[in-house]
């Protein structure tokens, strides 16, 4: 047995001190790839999918997160301590994300982790952080992270979840007696969106006329179109994400379904709309966490947009990019209140934090640390109505932040 294991058992040092001692010892011995002197900088890990299909969203998130850090550093950091963002590429793969997070905690000694875009990756990061008592603010849209099985006191969820987005879109679009058909991607996230829609339909009294589950990651939807058409729905809800969303909407339009029914999606993605063009998305209604068009109504949105434009040569922040900003800002504000990086103090601060940094008032619910926030409902504009290349959507509704739209704590498995 090598020295490492033997001295641990003999002296039985407590976990945290042993970790620091060995870790520090190790890094001094190791070839100094990046010498990580234990100075007083506040280090925050930021895993995001820089390679793969969501690279554009990831780059937006990094820019927004860096903006939040810069703003805090310009104001002297957190009582004098500078903040450093450590961006890592999680390659949209859970295994890769877990490895990067282990490196961030063990080698880079981060004080907290913010980030990740896909549901699987956030759960992998969460698994590593909650076992090691490191705060993790997830900015990936998913219901699963709210449930008690994956929850821990270190886990915070700053993003919307499908229950909120589908619910808001349903409440805006459906009336009593509307006939709704569903095309759903057959994986966890797809089922969550479907559940959100159906839950809201039950309240409104809208009837489901049919449901088709399509294989996750399918490229061809032509074989589902005849059946969807035969259901004669008023609304066609397409519950999937990314490339699946772009392909399925495009092919639904090709098959003339838009003439027959209004196409509605739980989340309408800025970059997918760019990837497919205005004609296909015209009239499609979907939910979103942020849209730069909010600046006409909200001062915090205006402030965020202006700061982002200044830092990025006039570019506007996208929906997923904004998560980088709101996620980081909420954590840094809590650290400010807690006066440092002591985990328990920062958690307590986060749980009572009231913040409005970009999209209106937000706060973390106590039981599942879900960020209670407003849900935008957007409609994709006709090419003719667009007042510029970035003017993609019209804000048709902005459902105010309220715990009523969330699933109840007991339903999620938390003690009453």
């Amino acid at each position: 047995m090598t020295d490492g294991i033997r001295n641990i058992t003999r002296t039985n040092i407590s976990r945290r001190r042993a970790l620091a001692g060995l870790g520090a010892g190790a890094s001094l011995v190791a070839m100094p790839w990046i010498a990580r002197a234990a100075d007083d900088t506040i280090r925050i890990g930021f895993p995001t999918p820089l390679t793969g299909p969501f690279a554009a969203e990831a780059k937006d998130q990094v820019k927004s997160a860096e903006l939040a850090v810069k703003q805090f550093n310009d104001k002297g950091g957190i009582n004098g301590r500078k903040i450093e963002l450590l961006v890592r590429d999680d390659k949209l793969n859970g295994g890769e994300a877990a490895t990067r997070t282990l490196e961030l905690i063990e080698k880079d000694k981060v004080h907290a982790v913010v980030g990740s875009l896909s549901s699987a990756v956030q759960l992998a990061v969460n698994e590593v952080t909650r076992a090691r008592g490191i705060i993790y603010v997830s900015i990936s849209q998913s219901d699963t992270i709210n449930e008690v099985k994956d929850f821990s006191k270190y886990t915070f969820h700053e993003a919307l979840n499908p229950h909120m987005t589908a619910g808001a879109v349903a409440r805006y679009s459906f009336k009593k007696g509307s006939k709704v058909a569903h095309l759903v991607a057959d994986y966890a996230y797809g089922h969550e969106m479907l559940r959100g829609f159906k839950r809201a339909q039950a309240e409104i009294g809208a009837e489901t006329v049919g449901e088709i589950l399509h294989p996750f990651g399918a490229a061809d939807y032509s074989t589902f179109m005849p059946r969807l058409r035969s259901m004669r729905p008023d609304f066609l809800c397409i519950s999937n994400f990314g490339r699946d969303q772009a392909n399925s909407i495009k092919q639904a339009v090709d098959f003339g379904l838009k003439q027959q029914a209004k196409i509605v999606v739980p989340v309408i993605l800025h970059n997918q709309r760019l990837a497919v063009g205005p004609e296909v998305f015209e009239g499609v209604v979907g939910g979103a966490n942020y849209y730069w068009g909010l600046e006409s109504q909200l001062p915090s949105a205006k402030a965020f947009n202006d700061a982002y434009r200044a830092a990025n040569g006039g570019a506007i922040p996208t929906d997923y990019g904004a998560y980088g900003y709101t996620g980081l800002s909420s954590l840094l504000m809590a650290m400010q209140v807690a006066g440092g990086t002591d985990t328990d103090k920062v958690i307590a601060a986060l749980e009572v934090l009231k913040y409005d940094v970009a999209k209106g008032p937000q706060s973390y619910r106590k039981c599942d640390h879900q960020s209670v926030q407003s849900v935008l409902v957007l409609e994709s504009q006709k090419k003719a109505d667009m007042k510029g290349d970035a003017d993609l959507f019209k804000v048709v509704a902005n459902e105010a932040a309220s715990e009523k739209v969330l699933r109840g704590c007991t339903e999620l498995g938390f003690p009453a």
Partner: protein
Amino acid sequence: MTSPALAEPLPSSVRKPGRVKSLMTTYRVPLSIIALCLLPWLLPSKALAVNVLVYGVVAVGYNLLFGYTGLLSFGHAAFVGAGAYITGIAIGQFGVPWYAAVLLGVIGGGLLAFAIGALSTRTRGIYFSMVTLALAQLVYYVALQASSWTGGENGLRGFTVNKINLLGYDINFLDPVNKYYVLMAFAALALWVVSRILNSPFGAAIEAIRENERRARTCGYNVERTKLLSFTLSGTICALGGTMSALHLAFVPLDSLHYHASGMIVMMTLLGGASSFFGPFVGALVFLVMEDVFSLWTSHWQIIVGSIFVLFVLFLPKGIWGTFLARFVR
């Protein structure tokens, strides 16, 4: 059939291994273990070092089939994934102690390898590669559908091992150095077992089959059964790699079953050198470090890794370690 020459033809056509070469061959396992002990202190991070251990074991296990039996399987990710999933489910949903869960993972992965092997070894050449790809993709879709067990697309979680009890000592498994050396013990065991297999009469039989299947059959070897045993052993070692990965990351991603993952295993093995014992391990090390370092410089690291792989297939078919052995070690 892939037939990377086991014997690196020296300038003369005689293969009489020199003193250094034969020393390296006889003591290959102890030498490898010494190298593994130093590994965590040379790499940028312990987490990366454990990944190298995991994929080193997987690549060496895979090479038993690819380099030594000459069968190009494109489905071995299914066994790595199966090992990881079974271990995770055993610990997470049945509270099985970690060592029993690892054993279950290895046995489960081995049984899956036997099943897929029994089907695929009935075919030959390109059809064999295609069957393994198709059957492994079926395992991927079954895991996607069985989300109550495997967590589906979200991956399997909820089985973090904080503490392990080894020979009476309580070891903090979250500590990176402890975790590395515990998992290194597994890797050493795997290397020793594979080395024993390659040195055994069975090892000679699979090499004969790689060299010339028809002649091996005429010499009296039951080619199908020998291939199936090699496939199963190879899958079992890969499953061990999977269990190690589950303990290391406390998470099992669904894409660990996808054919891209199988492709990565083939790339690592060939990069390192399919015609040598330790080559695949070197391939895993180089591949993962290259990926780790390049992805810090540019998000387009895949073009570098892809090009390097193409160049190796063209000019250095024996891989890094194979070429090093042939050129510098007499």
